[in-house]
């Protein structure tokens, strides 16, 4: 757009000139058009203001400057005007105070004065009739004409004047001596000054009125004019001021309402309103000015003769008298164009867009006729000579008029008209150019066309930025819309044309659909690249010998074209378009543009950038399966990569191009194939590094190979042979000639299993379906691969075949085993190329799983393979390896519950359900359920109850031996639980291995299969014990030696054993094992026991609930009578079950012993003990004596009171109540003679003994102990059985 004169394309607004505010130079905004044209008077305000020295002395500078900047702030220098709704705005220029506007040429005088046919007419200096004008003699309209009206000739002039004040500096009339202090003179001076000012204004007004220019004056009041405090004599200010202002206005002859304004001093902000109001009130005058101009031009146009009148050569009548110095003065048609253009311009100035369009249109139609070889408007006239100055000018004018029409149509919201103007312009000049021989074959044509679209796009873009919206098709179109007719809100297509055509109903003329600027930028770019192509062709042509120079464009055009960087321009245009589409969120369109940009870079030889673009866009096309596009991109990329020497990429592109997704001929594919082979095997590229490695991810590109992987089974066991198949299928058309890979590598997640299959260079023909055995590989150390499983197989791939590689692995440990990647590769001296199939990502596939069955027959020839169907669908790239499930059963038989302390037999049966004979071992452990106790547990397990050494609560690695398949082995273990009757758990582990593959390493290790089983065992105690110990009477035992310090006491121990076991128990022995005493002087002996007495205690059988009592008479010898607690010993029972557990048949289980601790003997600590000796076998009527023996354990004597209660059973002799003294450490015997009266169980006469102290109340009852009897409690007393008299 910059290549056109700005005057022709900028929007016009009325021009206002302001006087008295200085020039725009002060604001440094834009060059003042009047600059230099008018001499500044030396004393002008502007001059003084510019002087920095006097700047401080000028108080009104800031307001005037502020006013000027406000006025010029809205200067519209844009292509797009303020819009229809914008408030009245002027283009404001500031001119000097004494600025003289250019004189009017005489023809512009009012018609009444002008029409003097004989008078020589002066013309405007830029008229074609004026020699020296740029358009003399036959030009149309020079830009300077527009500029004149845009910037020089105002429609409204506003003068800013200051009211004189004596205190203000006197720039205007310095010569006059003014003494501010002179009284009386000030008033008269005011008047004088005001008169001068009024005359000046009047002069100005008149001179402008003559030209039809509206003049307004603005009086700027100063603070001094108003502020009373400044000067006492100004007290009448208001009134005087009004008078002065009215005077000035009157004298200058200005209209009070629209031509005379007063601006009081004020803050900056208030000027804004003033400026707005000023412009608003003068706006209509401005428009009137242009209206008048328009009318005048219209009149002139109407006086033109018809161009078809045949006198086109003759100048128009008003000009006819003027002797023509030009051989070809401007024809009538030219004048029509001029007038039409002027009319349009003035209409635009007054913002009458519709009229402007009309006139521009008319001018346009006339102007395009000039290009025709034979004018249709002016008969006989020939077109402008091609490439002449006028021709170029006219063409530029036509372009700009067209642009104006487009723009103004956008202005009035008529987008389709704008578009149709563009189409019209393009098609018209297409025809014109073609007929003139500068058409579609020349770069000039395309350059021009590209420019038209670009400018249009620019305008459209500016319009959109300024608020224009590409109309919503839904709202404009389809007056016959039916419900099924639907349009989106898309701003892409506009159907505004529809309304213009009544027939359309629901139809569209696609050429009339205005789209967003992106499209037009695209077209511009497209044509620009065509322009480049044409130019390159031309250059090529020019280099040839003997060409016809006449058809070449002028040399300067060629030179200019030479200097243009076409590609950069094209890319710029594409980029503009790209950005437009990007904002429209049409991602695919941007890809298309990116591909165009890339192509342009490619053309320009910027391969690296181009390649970057190609790579970026290729992804989407690949993903969305647009193969044709992708193929083209790949081919271009290939070109770039080759140019750049990035051979890795070349290989990659070639591999992808092999895919038969691209519909290319077989011949082309063979070319690609051989190119690839050449690069890999033959080409010796310089500066290649030692080995170029490329990994091409085949999942990311269109691959000519597909790879499918299957593990045969869903799961496998450690050590089991696990089969997998990898099927490679080539496409029906690719590779066009057999392709032989060097290696096939299988990568597992456990690199131990990685396979490396090498080509065996077998030249046999491949069949459509081939099964290849890859089992039984050998582990080898391959360079670059490490230790790997290797085998040589056939890796020759023809088109349309499937090769299935079957291999096997043996998992070492449990877990997921995954085949992660498969790579087919070439390995040459220079290259290592891998076609990498990544299997980690799940690939969607829904077909049934298939397994190819192939077998090698005896001659190592593969028989015809067939597919079988496996369970499931899709692929299976991983397999779960687990420990093999034990196929072994452990059964346990025992007769619960177990008794504590017994050898509890458990019969284990191990059943082998495996196919093979197995070698089996057993681990067993017994654990009490309370874990805290487990360490102290005395439980144990044993295989042999007869040996009890080295037993513990577990058994390890017990060899059960070899169990034949399907058979079982019985093993008996014995469990012995002690103490706690909590339930126990028996943990059993049986591990085994097939007899023909017994691992060399012990369990647990690979190869052993283990089986675990737990059993719970309940324990109960077989016996309950209770003990009773009583002291025997002292007198009964004789003292060993009276002098001995030893004391001997006798105790009677009664052990009561209750059988709680539910089963019968055979007791073989009961024994009391005395414990050794802590003190050597203390001895305990068993005097006698009931067991010893009972000689026939051999193998008693106790049943549940049976109670057996064992008595022991114990003799305690001790020195220290104060020793109180004496250990006795352990009661041990030897026993076993009466009936052996059914699981044990012929094994004799030995007796076990249950041990219980006899409670400690607690000796009494009484001061005095009393014993009674009850004679055996009393009879009725037979006297007997009860002897009470009282022992005083203290060293002091004690007094004992005795009182005997009588009862009916006995009569007794002696004191009923008595007392005696027992000496310290002495004894006393007290006898009671009793005569039994009645037989049977009788209570003895109760003897109450009391120890009496010195004081009343110091009594203590003495307990009487009768050996063999229970201790007496409360009122009870000893009961004896009295035999009745025999005689009775």
């Amino acid at each position, binding site marked *: 757009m910059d290549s056109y004169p700005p005057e022709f394309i900028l929007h016009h607004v009325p021009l206002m000139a302001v006087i008295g505010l200085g020039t725009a130079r002060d604001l440094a905004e834009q060059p003042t058009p009047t600059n230099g044209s008018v001499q500044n008077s030396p004393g002008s305000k502007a001059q003084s203001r510019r002087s920095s020295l006097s700047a401080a002395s000028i108080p009104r500078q800031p307001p005037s400057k502020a006013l000027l900047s406000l006025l010029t702030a809205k200067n519209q220098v844009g292509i797009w005007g303020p819009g229809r709704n914008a408030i009245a705005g002027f283009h404001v220029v500031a001119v000097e105070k004494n600025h003289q506007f250019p004189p009017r040429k005489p023809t512009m005088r009012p018609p009444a004065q002008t029409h003097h046919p004989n008078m020589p007419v002066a013309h405007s200096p830029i008229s074609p009739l004026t020699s020296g004008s740029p358009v003399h003699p036959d030009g149309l309209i020079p830009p300077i004409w527009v500029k004149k009206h845009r910037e020089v000739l105002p429609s409204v002039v506003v003068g800013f004047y200051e009211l004189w004040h004596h205190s203000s500096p006197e720039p205007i009339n310095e010569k006059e001596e003014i003494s501010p202090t002179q009284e009386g003179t000030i008033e008269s001076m005011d008047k004088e000054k005001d008169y001068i000012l009024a005359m000046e204004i009047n002069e100005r007004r008149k001179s402008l009125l003559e030209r039809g220019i509206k003049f307004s004056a603005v009086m700027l009041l100063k603070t001094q004019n108003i502020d009373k405090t400044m000067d006492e004599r100004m007290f009448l200010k208001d009134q005087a001021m009004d008078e002065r202002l009215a005077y000035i206005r009157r004298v200058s002859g200005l209209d009070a309402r629209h031509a005379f304004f007063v601006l009081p001093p004020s803050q900056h902000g208030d000027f804004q309103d003033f400026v707005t109001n000023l412009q608003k009130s003068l706006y209509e005058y401005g428009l009137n000015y242009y209206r008048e101009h328009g009318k005048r031009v219209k009149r002139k146009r109407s006086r033109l003769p018809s161009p078809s009148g045949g006198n086109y050569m003759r100048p128009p009548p008003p000009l006819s008298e003027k002797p023509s110095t030009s051989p070809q003065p401007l024809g009538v048609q030219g004048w029509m164009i001029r007038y039409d253009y002027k009319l349009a311009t003035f209409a635009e100035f007054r913002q009458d867009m519709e009229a402007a369009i009309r006139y521009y249109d008319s001018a346009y139609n006339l102007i395009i006729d000039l290009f025709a070889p034979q004018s249709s408007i002016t008969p006989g006239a020939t077109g402008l000579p091609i490439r002449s100055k006028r021709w170029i000018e006219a063409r530029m004018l036509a372009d700009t008029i067209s642009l104006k029409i487009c723009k103004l149509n956008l202005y009035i919201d008529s987008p389709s008209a704008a578009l149709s103007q563009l*189409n019209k312009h393009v098609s018209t000049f297409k025809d014109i150019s073609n007929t003139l021989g500068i058409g579609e074959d020349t770069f000039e044509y395309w350059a021009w066309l590209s420019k038209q679209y670009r400018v249009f796009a620019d305008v459209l873009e500016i319009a959109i930025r300024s608020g224009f919206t590409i109309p919503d098709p839904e709202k404009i179109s389809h007056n016959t819309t039916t419900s*099924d*007719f*639907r*349009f*989106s*809100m*898309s701003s*892409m*297509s506009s*159907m505004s*044309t*529809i309304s213009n*055509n009544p*027939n*359309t*109903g*629901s*139809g*569209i*003329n*696609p*050429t009339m*659909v205005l*789209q967003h600027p992106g*499209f037009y930028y*695209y*077209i511009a770019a*497209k044509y620009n690249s065509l322009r480049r192509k044409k130019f390159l062709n031309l250059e090529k042509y020019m280099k040839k010998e003997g060409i016809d120079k006449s058809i070449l464009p002028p040399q300067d055009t060629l030179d200019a074209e030479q200097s243009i960087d076409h590609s950069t321009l094209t890319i710029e245009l594409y980029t503009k378009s790209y950005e437009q589409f990007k904002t429209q*969120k*049409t*991602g*695919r*369109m941007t*890809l*298309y543009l990116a*591909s165009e940009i890339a192509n342009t870079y490619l053309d320009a030889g910027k391969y690296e950038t181009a390649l970057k673009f190609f790579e970026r866009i290729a992804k989407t*096309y690949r993903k*969305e*399966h*647009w193969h*044709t*596009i992708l193929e*083209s991109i790949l081919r271009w990329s290939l070109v770039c990569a080759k140019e750049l020497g990035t051979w890795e990429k070349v290989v990659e592109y070639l591999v992808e191009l092999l895919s038969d997704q691209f519909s290319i001929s077989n011949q082309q594919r063979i070319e690609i194939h051989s190119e690839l082979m050449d690069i890999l095997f033959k080409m010796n590229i310089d500066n290649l590094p030692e080995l170029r490695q490329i990994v091409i991810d085949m999942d990311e590109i269109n691959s000519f190979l597909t790879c499918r992987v299957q593990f045969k089974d869903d799961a496998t066991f450690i050590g089991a042979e696990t089969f997998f198949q990898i099927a490679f299928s080539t496409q029906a058309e690719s590779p066009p000639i057999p392709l032989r890979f060097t290696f096939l590598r299988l990568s597992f997640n456990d690199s131990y299993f990685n396979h490396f299959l090498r080509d065996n260079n077998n030249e046999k023909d491949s069949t459509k379906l081939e099964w290849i055995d890859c089992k039984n590989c050998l582990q080898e150390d391959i360079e670059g691969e490490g230790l790997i499983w290797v085998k040589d197989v056939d890796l020759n791939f023809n088109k349309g075949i499937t090769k299935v590689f079957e291999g096997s692995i043996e998992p070492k440990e449990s877990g997921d085993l995954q085949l992660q990647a498969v790579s087919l590769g070439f390995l040459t001296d220079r290259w290592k190329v891998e076609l990498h199939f990544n299997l980690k990502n799940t690939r969607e596939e829904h077909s049934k799983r298939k397994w190819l069955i192939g077998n090698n027959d005896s001659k190592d020839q593969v028989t015809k393979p067939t597919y079988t169907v496996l369970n499931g669908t899709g692929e299976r790239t991983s397999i779960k390896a687990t420990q093999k499930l034990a196929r072994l059963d452990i059964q346990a038989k025992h007769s619960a519950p177990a008794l504590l302390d017994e050898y509890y037999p458990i019969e284990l049966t191990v059943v082998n359900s495996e196919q093979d004979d197995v070698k089996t071992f057993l681990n067993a452990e017994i654990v009490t359920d309370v874990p805290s106790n487990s360490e102290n547990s005395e439980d144990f397990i044993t295989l042999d109850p007869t040996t009890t050494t080295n037993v513990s609560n577990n058994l390890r690695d017990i060899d059960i031996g070899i169990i034949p398949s399907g058979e079982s082995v019985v093993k008996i273990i014995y469990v012995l639980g002690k103490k706690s009757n909590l339930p126990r758990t028996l943990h059993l582990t049986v591990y085994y291995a097939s007899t023909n593959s017994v691992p060399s390493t012990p369990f647990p290790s690979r190869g052993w299969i283990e089986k675990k089983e737990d059993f719970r065992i309940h324990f109960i105690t077989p016996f309950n014990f209770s003990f009773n110990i009583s002291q025997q009477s002292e007198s009964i035992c004789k003292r060993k030696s009276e002098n001995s310090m030893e004391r001997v006491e006798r105790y009677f121990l009664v052990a009561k054993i209750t059988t709680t076991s539910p089963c019968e128990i055979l007791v073989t022995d009961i024994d009391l094992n005395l414990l050794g005493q802590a003190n050597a002087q203390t001895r305990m002996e068993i005097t006698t026991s009931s067991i010893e007495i009972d000689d026939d205690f051999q193998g008693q059988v106790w049943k549940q609930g049976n109670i057996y009592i064992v008595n022991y008479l114990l003799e305690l010898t001790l020195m220290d009578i104060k020793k109180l607690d004496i250990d006795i010993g352990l009661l041990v029972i030897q026993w076993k079950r009466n009936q052996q557990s059914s699981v044990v048949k012929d094994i004799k289980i030995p007796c076990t012993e249950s041990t219980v601790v006899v409670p400690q003997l607690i000796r009494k600590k009484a001061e005095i003990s009393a014993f009674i000796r009850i004679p055996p076998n009393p009879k009725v009527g037979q006297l007997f004596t009860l002897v009470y023996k009282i022992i005083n354990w203290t060293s002091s004597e004690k007094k004992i009171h005795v009182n005997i209660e009588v009862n009916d059973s006995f009569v007794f002799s002696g004191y009923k109540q008595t007392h005696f003294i027992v000496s310290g450490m002495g004894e006393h015997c007290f006898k009671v003679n009793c005569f039994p009266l009645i037989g049977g169980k009788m209570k003895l006469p109760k003897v109450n003994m009391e120890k009496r102290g010195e004081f009343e109340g110091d009594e203590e009852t003495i307990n009487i102990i009768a050996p063999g009897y229970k201790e007496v409690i409360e009122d009870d007393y000893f009961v004896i059985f009295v035999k009745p008299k025999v005689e009775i």
Partner: protein
Amino acid sequence: MNLTNSHPDLKFHYIAHTSCDFIDERAIVSGSEPADTYLGLLYTMEDLAVYGYVTNTKVKFVVVLSIPDAVIKNTDIKNLFKKIHNVYINQVCNPFYNLDGKKSIVSKKFIESIDAIGSMSSDEVVSP
């Protein structure tokens, strides 16, 4: 299906691809309404006008016309699309045609039918 020789195939592939954008956009706008499948003019580029049509199963048809400088009736284009749709339905009804396959249609009959539509005169198009 390229029925003219004015542009290389590649151009039409690009146009078909880019028109997906416009179809998507319109499909979003039309939203849930059980609307007509004809999408109208998608865009014009250079001298080509691109029209779109979407079946209920979201199969997209794109017709590219070289622009005549005249009004193109929507009913004409709609009929054209209906014919194409019918041909496509016939193709899909073929039990041997893999609908989910990502390959382009190779049926000879389909191509012939589309060719026939392309070579129809506008009058034939109007009367389906």
